[in-house]
């Protein structure tokens, strides 16, 4: 079965009806309705009510629906979860996660709300947003703290503040933290999602940042503007040569399964589990991008 892609996760301010209604038009893999930084403290109640009704009413197409909720130690955390779980977003993205306990506590709270709403346990997934030095230090433990967790994301703005540094175009100050988040997520079998690039007018800079994220191993990128979505998809799109080779690997593997053949090779190269998995990932991404013939095993 194909794995859901999370190349682009588009942030949408949770208190802006027009932007919420239009979000799916840009076809991001995931939409993040934001109740945290994009919403003023005195508008949290209004945004929460609007997001809940949007989830209950609007058709967001094939987009994964996430809601970024306020951190565990804020006065909005419990109200966010109580209101949102019955509206069944696919994922709650918890801001400012610093320890496994933050996730375990949230997991149990969501479980309680799922029971009250008559939903099966685990209906609503979780994503941990790691944005501080402490969070990065605990990333590996956080990544395995709950079966509900499907991804961890990295937040550079708060992180650079927490290490008393400044964010630069080169991003040297982020290299260790980004790598730590990728390793933690990949070791746990969940998706690492890279930080936002706030300068929406700097398209070359954004493209370079997405390429760097992809090379580091991130599954996708958080986006703050709709026009960033197409750039992310373009960077993550496999080349036609990569797709051709991947489809040949999958076809050979499917053929071997059918015939009960043991070891197989394509172009003189032995095909084993990791190569099949990598080929499937390339075809999945190509299919999502609207190319490839769609061989699947």
């Amino acid at each position: 079965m194909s794995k859901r892609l999370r190349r682009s996760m588009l942030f949408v301010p949770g208190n802006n009806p027009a932007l919420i209604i239009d979000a799916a038009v840009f076809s991001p893999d995931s939409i993040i309705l934001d109740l945290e930084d994009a919403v003023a403290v005195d508008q949290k109640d209004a945004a929460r009510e609007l997001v809940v009704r949007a989830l209950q009413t609007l058709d967001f197409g094939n987009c994964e629906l996430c809601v970024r909720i306020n951190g565990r130690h804020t006065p909005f955390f419990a109200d966010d979860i109580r209101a949102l779980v019955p509206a069944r977003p696919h994922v709650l993205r918890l801001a400012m996660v610093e320890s496994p306990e933050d996730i375990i506590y949230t997991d149990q709270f969501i479980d309680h709300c799922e029971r009250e709403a008559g939903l099966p346990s685990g209906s609503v997934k979780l994503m941990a947003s790691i944005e501080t030095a402490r969070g990065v230090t605990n990333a590996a433990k956080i990544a395995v703290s709950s079966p509900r967790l499907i991804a961890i994301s990295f937040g550079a703005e708060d992180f650079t503040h927490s290490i008393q540094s400044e964010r630069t175009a080169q991003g040297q100050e982020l290299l260790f933290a980004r790598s730590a988040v990728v390793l933690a997520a990949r070791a746990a079998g969940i998706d690492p999602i890279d930080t936002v690039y706030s300068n929406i007018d700097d398209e070359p800079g954004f493209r370079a940042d997405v390429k760097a994220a992809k090379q580091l191993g991130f599954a996708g990128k958080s986006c703050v503007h709709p026009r960033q979505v197409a750039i992310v998809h373009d960077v993550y799109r496999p080349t036609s040569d990569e797709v051709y080779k991947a489809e040949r690997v999958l076809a050979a593997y499917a053929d071997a399964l059918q015939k009960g053949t043991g070891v197989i090779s394509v172009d003189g190269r032995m095909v084993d589990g990791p190569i099949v998995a990598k080929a499937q990932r390339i075809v999945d991404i190509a299919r999502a991008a609207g190319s490839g013939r769609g061989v699947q095993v």
Partner: protein
Amino acid sequence: MIRRYAQAGSLESGDALVHVALAQDEALTIRIKSKVAPRFLASMQSSVREIATELGIMSATIEVMDSGALDFVLRARVTTAIKRSMEASVDE
């Protein structure tokens, strides 16, 4: 019970600004200003009344300044404005 004046929403396109105030009498009065009022006034009034009833409000003045809000947006803004108006004011 309405305890104080409150508002929610905005005048931005696609939104509605909703004011809720104590009623002068025991009635629920709904006033709506909208460019689409000639066609959708009855349906908008019905949505506002339904939310007020769900929240147990029988007496209030609710004023909506609509800027093209969809029904779910209108309902969200009315809900928030009424809930805010039901909270105790700071000096209580």
